[in-house]
Each structure stands twice: as C-alpha cells, then as structure tokens.
C-alpha cells in the first residue's frame, strides 16, 4: 500500500538530484518538479523544497511541507528560519550535510509511517536509552542534576552538559506547569509556586528519557495532556526574546540543534531536543531545526 508520495520542488537540476538521493532512501515514490505549479500535490504528498524559496511560496494543501537547505552545502540563515517559523512551516531543516541527510530521512519516515513518538527515531541502534519518571514536581532539580552527571560521565564536555541541563529544566517545567489543562483549556498549574510539593501521577505523570549515540545527545520529555500549541510556539521562537514570560521554550530552542514537537492532541505531548556533539556549533546553522508532528499516541 502506498504510504504517500514525495515531491521535490526545486528549480536547479543539481539540487533536484541531491534531494532526490536523500529522500529516495525512504522507499516511497519520488517526483521532481522545477516549480510548484508543475507539481502534482494532494493531501498525501510530502513536499520538500528549498528553504530560501519557501517564504515566497503559496502552499496548496499537502500532507507536509519540509524546507531544507537546498543542496545541503550551507545552513539556512537565521532570518529565513524566523520567516518560516512565523509563516507556519511545520518542518524546517536548518543544517547542512551530513546532518541534513539524517534529519530529512527521519522526518520523511516519521511522516510516511505515521509513527511520530520516541527519541529512538533520531539515534542509531547502539544508543543506550535512560529513563526517569518524576514522582513529584520537586524532583525536577534532582533529575536534571543526575542527567548532567551522566552526560559528563559519557565524556562529553561541560558545554554540552550545561546546555542539556538548561533544556531539560525548561522542558520539564513546561510539562509540569504549562501542560496541565482543564476541560475548558485553562492552564491549571501555570501559577503554581515552583517550591510547592505536588505528586505527578496519573495524567500528571512526566517522564524524561535521554541517550547519546556519539552523534547526538537526544532528550525526550513527555506529558499526558497533549495541550501544546505548536503554531503559537513557532511564532514565539521566530521573534527576538524579551524578559517577561514565555522564555522557557525559546531558551531550550536556542540551546539545541533540533527541536521536535510530537503531539497527540488531548493525549500526549513529547518534545525531543537534539544536540549534535560531532561538530563545532559554527559548523552548523545558527538557528536550530524545528519540526511539528501530529499523530496517534502510542
């Protein structure tokens, strides 16, 4: 059964070939088009196009749109990244090769297989996944401290440990305080004092998993509310940060190379943050990649 169709839209033949090779590995039919008007796009189509061209496109309905750095030789610049986030793009890959290949293939396969949850999709088989379940809101500091200790034990530098700590702290705080909603959508825990003891059981359960495969450090934080608003988050990431309110996710985004929001609305939110530990930050894009996947909770 066809799982969907991939369409590469790019005016340059060399870029078409490069992108065809990358997404062809997914095993789904790939069509190539010079321009959007020449592409056959429907609601089963996953469209891959150049990030530099993307902001000016009027996008017809499709299964998904993925903006990539053309042939993959240079990263997407920060201004283009901001424009695409503000414009509602769910998938923007910012980094050049070889990261582009890994990220694009994982993105396409998650969409084709309609299987979106789990950090394993970004790691090799050899990664050892570790898991924590927070039993109380006050466990956050201890879990972050333990995570930082384990990252250092893996031989990773203090810089990575520091960024992992910030990301984990912010994503856990988001899951503990921002995620819980009542039937009317009111965020019931947003104003809770951060020093208040509160058991995290049942629907309030929050988990953190992490692993490294010596390419990436991947963090995965889950809550059972599925209340995150990816469009609002993307817009918030697209603008300069101010000091008042809503800094948590932008800070986590600034500390990672790829931020992935996986959502089963009303049931599950999973945020995966990836740090590339192979390259210097300056070898990658200034802005991190961003993805939103919507799917069924496992």
């Amino acid at each position: 059964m066809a799982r969907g169709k991939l369409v590469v839209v790019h005016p340059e033949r060399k870029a078409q070939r490069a992108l065809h090779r990358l997404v062809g590995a997914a095993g789904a039919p790939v069509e190539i088009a010079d321009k959007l008007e020449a592409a056959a796009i429907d609601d089963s189509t996953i469209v891959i196009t150049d990030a530099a061209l993307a902001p000016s496109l009027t996008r017809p309905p499709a299964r998904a749109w993925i903006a990539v750095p053309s042939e993959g030789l240079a990263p997407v610049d920060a201004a283009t990244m901001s424009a695409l986030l503000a414009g509602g793009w769910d998938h923007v890959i910012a980094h050049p090769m070889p990261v582009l290949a890994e990220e694009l293939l994982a993105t396409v396969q998650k969409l084709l297989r309609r299987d979106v949850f789990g950090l394993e999709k970004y790691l090799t088989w050899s990664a050892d996944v570790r898991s924590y379940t927070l039993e109380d809101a006050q466990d956050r500091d201890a879990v972050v401290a333990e995570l930082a200790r384990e990252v250092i034990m893996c031989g990773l530098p203090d810089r990575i440990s520091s960024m992992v700590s910030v990301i984990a702290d912010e994503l856990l705080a988001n899951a503990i305080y921002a995620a819980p909603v009542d039937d009317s959508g009111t965020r019931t825990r947003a104003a809770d004092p951060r020093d208040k003891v509160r058991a995290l059981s049942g629907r309030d359960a929050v988990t953190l998993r992490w692993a490294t495969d010596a390419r990436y450090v991947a963090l995965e934080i889950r809550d059972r509310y599925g209340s995150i608003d990816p469009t609002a988050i993307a817009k918030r990431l697209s603008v300069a940060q101010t000091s008042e309110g809503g800094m948590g996710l932008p800070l986590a985004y600034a500390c990672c190379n790829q931020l992935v929001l996986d959502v089963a609305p009303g049931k599950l939110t999973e945020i995966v943050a990836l740090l590339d530990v192979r390259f210097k930050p300056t070898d990658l894009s200034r802005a991190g990649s961003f993805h939103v996947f919507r799917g069924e909770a496992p």
Partner: protein
Amino acid sequence: MRLDVQVAGNRVTLAGRIDDTASLAELPGRVPAGEIVIDTEGVTFVNSIGMREWIRLLRALRDSGRKVRLERVADVLMTQMNLIAELAGAVAISSFHAQYVCPACGAETQPVVEVTGSLTVMPALPCPECGSAMELGDFPERYLTIFKA
C-alpha cells in the same frame, strides 16, 4: 547548589544557580550607594525564571540611576543575556567567560575575555594545555550582541 550571594562593599559575588529559587529583589538595598560591581564567575546554571529575575535586577538598578558593572560574567549567563533584545548596549561588562576550543589538542575551556574599548571581534587566546591558539567555540554574536547599542 542554590544561589550564594556575597556582598563586600560595592562588590557583589554570585555563585551557584540562578533559577526559580533565586531572589535578587532585595540585593540593591544591601549594597552601599554608588556603582555596583557584580561578579558572576561562579554561576553554574541559569533558567528562564532565573533570567527574568536577573533582568529585573539590572532594570531596577538602571531605573534607580545606579551604575552597574559586570565582571567575569559566566558563560551560561553571557550567552543567555545575548538572547535578550533589551540588554543590547544597556549593560557595562568589563570581562566575561566564553567557550573556546583548541584545534591542536581538542581542549575545550572557558577563559576570561577582557573587554577593552568597544569589543567587535572575539580575541584569539592561548590554549592552557598546549599553548596553541584557540578558536571561539561558538558564534561570535552569542557574546557580542550585547555590546551593540
């Protein structure tokens, strides 16, 4: 480690975590009138709530007309301050820590960068292990944006 605040004359030394538990609102009243020098070399962690508290402190000092100078700003605080638009050109910084890498031996370290005049490029610094010239390990704007008015 929670945030440890030491005040000695006009000099304030912060160490530990600037997070949800950190309260800096009372700090201006504990320091004699005149310029305040804040040393944050010992700060190891800053989250978004802590950053908000830190900015409120800087804003309160500025609004009260007091001069503030930041010394040996921790790398984690420096990179986060550079994300905040309102701080660009608004803070006097005399030195800060920055992430450097040595292409020769692979060492990663956070030496102190002294600010003399207007800082527009990050300096090359010697590796403490092998003496080779180190490179900045991150994008320059993650340290320099705050110096632009």
